[in-house]
């Protein structure tokens, strides 16, 4: 029988974290932003059908970066969790906080116990009746959970995007303005030496929103709405100086 080499727990966890971080940084960034009209989710994603953004429940959305099969299985598990909970209790008993803590537990368990950690980073966003009630939770591969205010950027060269976005984002903006700010900032992801790439267009973008008052706007309790390419074009075509 071969003798196993001793690896200290510190080293083991560090190696796993480095591995997961590298996997996540390979993709492109996703931005989740709170604003006056609700929460906007913007991702660079050339595929029209393999989504990085998804609906979980009435007022809750999901955004992810990393390995598709891993975050897709987490998204489906989240939809099951929310639907079972809403069916057995009541629709208003499904909260982003509950979902985020379940995600944190399963990510933490996979990180320590499985042979390979998940190479994913997730955001769970819940839109409130007022901007102050919005919740954006960030979940990382090791099960860490953070409650963020304003906006978050995950994946890719997130630091460059955060830097670009911090000058552009304000809480009072509307959907069109925050989406333009997010798209402009995403072009700093993978830009060479701090220079932005050409502005992204609707063919390489995935955009969704959580409306603050979907009942008044569309007569539905479901706040999640994926913006079709034509609508993204309209939002982006509006002159930046007029906003």
């Amino acid at each position, binding site marked *: 029988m071969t003798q196993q080499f001793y690896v200290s727990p510190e080293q083991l966890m560090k190696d796993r974290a480095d591995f997961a971080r590298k996997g996540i940084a390979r993709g492109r960034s996703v931005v989740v932003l709170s604003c006056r009209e609700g929460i906007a989710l913007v991702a660079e994603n050339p595929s029209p059908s393999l*989504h990085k953004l*998804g609906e*979980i429940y009435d007022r809750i959305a999901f955004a992810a970066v990393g390995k598709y099969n891993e975050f897709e299985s987490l998204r489906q598990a989240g*939809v099951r969790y929310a*639907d079972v909970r809403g069916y057995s209790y009541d629709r208003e008993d499904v909260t982003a906080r509950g979902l985020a803590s379940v995600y944190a537990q399963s990510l933490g368990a996979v990180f320590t116990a499985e042979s390979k950690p998940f190479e994913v980073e997730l955001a769970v966003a819940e839109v409130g009746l007022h901007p102050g009630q919005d919740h954006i939770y960030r979940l990382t591969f090791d099960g860490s959970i953070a409650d963020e205010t304003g906006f978050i950027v995950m994946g890719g060269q997130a630091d460059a995007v955060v830097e670009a976005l911090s000058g552009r984002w304000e809480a009072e903006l509307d959907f069109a303005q925050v989406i333009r700010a997010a798209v402009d900032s995403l072009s700093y992801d993978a830009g060479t030496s701090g220079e932005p790439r050409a502005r992204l267009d609707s063919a390489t973008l995935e955009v969704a929103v959580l409306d603050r008052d979907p009942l008044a706007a569309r007569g539905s309790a479901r706040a999640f709405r994926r913006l079709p390419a034509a609508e993204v074009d309209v939002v982006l075509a509006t002159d930046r100086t007029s906003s």
Partner: protein
Amino acid sequence: MPEDAAAAIGRAASTSFSDYIASQNPTALPSARNVGSNGSGSSTELAPHATTIVSLTYAGGVLMAGDRRATMGNVIASRHIEKVFPADMFSVLGIAGSAGIALDVTRLFQVELEHYEKIEGTRMSLDGKANRLAAMVRANLPLALQGLAVVPLFAGFDTTRRIGRLFSYDVTGGRYEEQEHHSVGSGSVFARGALKKLWKPNLGEDEAVKVAVEALYDAADDDSATGGPDVVRQLWPVVYTVNGAGNRRIPERSLAQAAQEIIASRSVSGREA
């Protein structure tokens, strides 16, 4: 090595909420209720029953309407009950039979459709929805044999064929596509007669609402378990339309107007039957 990879595909093939909850928490299903052996007394006197639902196609869509009465034996259990519900954006269902179980089946069906939509990222086909509802009615068969039957009527807009379609069910889960119009519940025989005389091809939406309200009026006239328009409490039937733009609940004032026109025209003619 993990378990057989093909087994994982089999598991992933099921995107059904009711299948999932049946494996995780089967007691949460409406059909899991165990009412024991059927003792003395009829279930019609134990639990509220919902009655007449009418549905008809019109130009560009389909309409469903239900009265507001629930009965327990010869007692009126509720004058406010609603029996027609949106199932998802492009379909509605109406329920007749044991009210408590029917409401649970409705709620399960609504979650089933929304769950599929979220997991798959696309809407279920209209035939798929009709089949899922059939499975839920079939699961309720043991309770139906104990007298707690649920008989839904399902109507939706087929977004590929661009037409409104409607489906009826029997307690064994048999699914039957109906043409032009259909009705279920204890007052349905009378409503059906009215629909046969009043329905015409290519009705407009307003005319269709009037036809449905009049059919329910006739059902209430002859069936004690069906409630007519209640002018004292200002209670009108619940009416939904489904067309290419989705489903829409007809506002109270249109229904009040339709009901009052029928009452007025029948008062004027002053006929007995």
